[in-house]
């Protein structure tokens, strides 16, 4: 029943696929119930957002935006040589392009507010990333990041010290304490045999890692696998398949609309938009609630390449597709009735020193660690969410290593996939892999780390120096998880998705944004300029007054008697254009009462020079409409003859 006049809306198959029904994010039913992301702000952390474009301007949030490359509040993209800085605008359009404006396209959460943080268009450091991740974090609810370390199949990188600290600070203090939601794209290194477990943003427990599938539901050529992928959503595929239609910038060759947005960059903002819909119906969802709802509602679907595996808690996961396709209807209906998960519990094993050789395939090195009930008593940890393994392994060719983790249930996670392009001789040094494949399983039991060397014979073998296991989860028991799964399924009919049903939401915390008022360099320069200008003219003016006074004092007639009034010509008097110039002196009437202090003066003292015009500063002339003398009963212009001036 939803119709928009946006010319490209019919081509937006990811929103409503008429050609292959079901191959879309299933969002129209949610829109029909007025769930459009209202009251939620999504910020695109990228190369800028052209917020002046018709599809974005009405939803733009300047208060959530900033430009860290130029250090000013406006994240407008800067055109560059290769027509490159359109990326952020495209992502923003996917999220919140305005409907029914007869322009281009429609965003998933077209009722939400969209902000931009420009950070990719210039030198980027750890401290800048940290600033970006927490910028306006009481205004921005969701941070959509369609970027990451190089996807060249040989990079191992992620957020550094400050970036990690900011992600953690964001989930603890962001969004009034419910936690900022960080959505990251899993990576486009498919052609280089890359794997997103080598990307620290995807591995992080604080981020929602989103992969891409094409219109047929398959893993596109550019997509990467990983054990830490939560879910997938649509994006472009190979040439025969359609890409994502969204708003584009209109700078350089841009037309304001594109049908060619693709890559995991296009998938992450769609997920961010769907999370915005969730937050509209339930603003108090915590960052972990959002992750849980994704795990519980993502849909597995038929794809023979996908190596789906169902874990002990009944969740099916694939290294290619995470827990499956995001489905807006399921996400929003689950959000509507979701009550918060228990606090995050964690367990960290001691650093386990091994110093064991990694044998060549088909043999493998296997090391175990048993987590006992006693170990978990302190934290109360019962069921798992994320499981992380931090390893230090030496090897002359890092890409030859294969690392697998088996949870107590036997659920296998390929956390370190071999990479043919990775010939780095430095191995892994305290690198943390993570997996979500054991989500909901019991935490207690024996964890197995299995490492193989799939490289060729000629090289020396690798050594596992040490490793450490970290479990994240909650006090939820397997029964609690089963109950929640059933509860959600009962909500999928949509019977709760109306304004009449609302669960109580705890108020958020009032967390002041700590960054004080920052004066941007431009403002600073302007202030300095104005200051100098003012000082200069003040000095000039004072000099002027001093000199004119000195001149007057030097004039003979003035010393003793009344100052001669300048001759006033009849003509100017008749025309009323006469300029009365008089020295700035105290006027004294004949009775010696100084009118300056005279209480009887009825008019104001010297009037400000109100006849000065631009450039007419040769002689500071001041007009005095009336002498403020006590005997005011005569018209002012007759009084002057009797006036005595004291200079």
């Amino acid at each position, binding site marked *: 029943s939803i119709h928009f006049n946006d010319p490209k809306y019919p081509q937006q198959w990811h929103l409503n696929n008429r050609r292959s029904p079901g191959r879309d994010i299933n969002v129209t039913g949610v829109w029909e119930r007025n769930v459009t992301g209202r009251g939620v702000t999504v910020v695109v952390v*990228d*190369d800028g957002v052209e917020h002046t474009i018709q599809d974005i301007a009405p939803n733009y949030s300047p208060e959530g935006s900033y430009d*860290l*490359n*130029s*250090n000013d509040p406006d994240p407008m993209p800067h055109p560059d040589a290769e027509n490159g800085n359109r*990326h952020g605008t495209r992502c923003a359009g996917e999220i919140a392009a305005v409907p029914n404006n007869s322009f281009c396209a429609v965003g998933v959460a077209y009722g939400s507010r969209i902000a931009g943080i420009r950070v*990719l268009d*210039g*030198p*980027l*450091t*750890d*401290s*800048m*990333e*940290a*600033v*970006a*991740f*927490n*910028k306006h*974090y009481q205004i921005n609810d969701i941070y959509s990041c*369609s*970027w*990451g*370390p*190089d*996807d060249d199949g040989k*990079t191992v*990188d992620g957020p*550094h*010290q*400050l970036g990690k*600290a*900011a992600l953690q*600070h964001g989930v603890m*203090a962001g969004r009034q304490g419910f936690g900022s939601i960080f959505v990251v*794209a899993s*990576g*486009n290194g498919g052609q280089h045999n890359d794997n997103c477990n080598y990307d620290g943003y995807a591995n992080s427990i604080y981020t929602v890692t989103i992969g891409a599938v094409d219109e047929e539901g398959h893993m596109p050529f550019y997509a990467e696998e990983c054990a830490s992928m939560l879910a997938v959503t649509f994006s472009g595929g190979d040439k025969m398949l359609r890409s994502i239609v969204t708003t584009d910038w209109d700078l350089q060759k841009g037309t304001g609309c594109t049908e060619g947005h693709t*890559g*995991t*960059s296009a998938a*992450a903002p769609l997920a961010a938009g769907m999370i915005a819909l969730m937050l509209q119906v339930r603003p108090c969802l915590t960052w972990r609630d959002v992750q849980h709802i994704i795990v519980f509602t993502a849909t597995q679907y038929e794809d023979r390449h996908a190596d789906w595996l169902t874990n002990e808690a009944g969740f099916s996961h694939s290294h290619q597709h995470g827990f499956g396709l995001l489905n807006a209807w399921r996400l929003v209906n689950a959000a509507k009735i979701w009550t918060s998960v228990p606090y995050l519990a964690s367990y960290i094993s001691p650093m386990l020193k091994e110093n064991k050789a990694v044998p060549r395939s088909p043999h493998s090195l296997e090391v175990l660690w048993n987590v006992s009930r006693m170990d978990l008593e302190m934290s109360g940890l019962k069921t798992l969410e994320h499981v992380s393994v931090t390893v230090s392994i030496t090897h002359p060719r890092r890409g030859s290593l294969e690392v697998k983790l088996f949870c107590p249930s036997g659920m296998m996670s390929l956390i370190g996939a071999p990479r043919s392009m990775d010939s780095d001789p430095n191995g892994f040094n305290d690198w943390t892999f993570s997996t979500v494949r054991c989500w909901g399983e019991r935490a207690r039991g024996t964890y197995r780390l299995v490492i193989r060397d799939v490289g060729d014979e000629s090289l020396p073998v690798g050594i596992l120096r040490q490793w450490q296991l970290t479990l994240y989860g909650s006090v939820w028991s397997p029964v609690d998880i089963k109950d929640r799964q059933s509860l959600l399924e009962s909500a999928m009919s949509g019977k709760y998705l109306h304004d009449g049903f609302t669960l109580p939401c705890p108020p958020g915390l009032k967390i002041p*944004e*700590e*960054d*004080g008022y*920052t*004066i941007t*360099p431009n403002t*600073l320069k302007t202030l300095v300029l104005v200051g100098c200008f003012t000082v200069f003219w003040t000095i000039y003016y004072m000099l002027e007054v001093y000199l004119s006074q000195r001149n007057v004092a030097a004039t003979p007639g003035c010393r003793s008697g009344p100052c001669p009034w300048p001759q006033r010509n009849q003509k100017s008097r008749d025309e009323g254009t006469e300029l009365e110039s008089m020295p700035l002196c105290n006027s004294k009437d004949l009775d010696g009462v100084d009118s300056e202090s005279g209480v009887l003066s009825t008019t104001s003292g010297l009037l400000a020079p109100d006849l000065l015009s631009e450039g007419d500063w040769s002689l500071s002339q001041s007009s005095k409409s009336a002498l403020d003398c006590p005997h005011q009963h005569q018209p002012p212009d007759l009084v002057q003859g009797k006036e005595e001036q004291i200079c």
Partner: protein
Amino acid sequence: LSGAGGPDTLGAGGLSWAVHLDNLEGKREEESLAQQADAVAQAAGLVNAGRIGELRGHYLFVQPVGHRQAVEVEAMRQQAEAVLARHEAVRWYSEQRLLKRAKR
């Protein structure tokens, strides 16, 4: 960055360090941390560019503006590292390097 200077200082290719100062107790913490940051930066021959976003106790110290020879820059780096390494108020520090990030 919450202070002036900020990334365009970095953009000039200047050296910069992120520093985590030991948090002092009490409410006065903020301004005294800022003062302490100024003092530590000065001791290291650097300029305090302000707190790093919302991370309490984390400050960015940048190389004073002005062009220098490579030799001078290296000497400055050594000096800064030496001062930050032994300063009792410094809990952690790290020279800021450019990160390679790609749009996806």
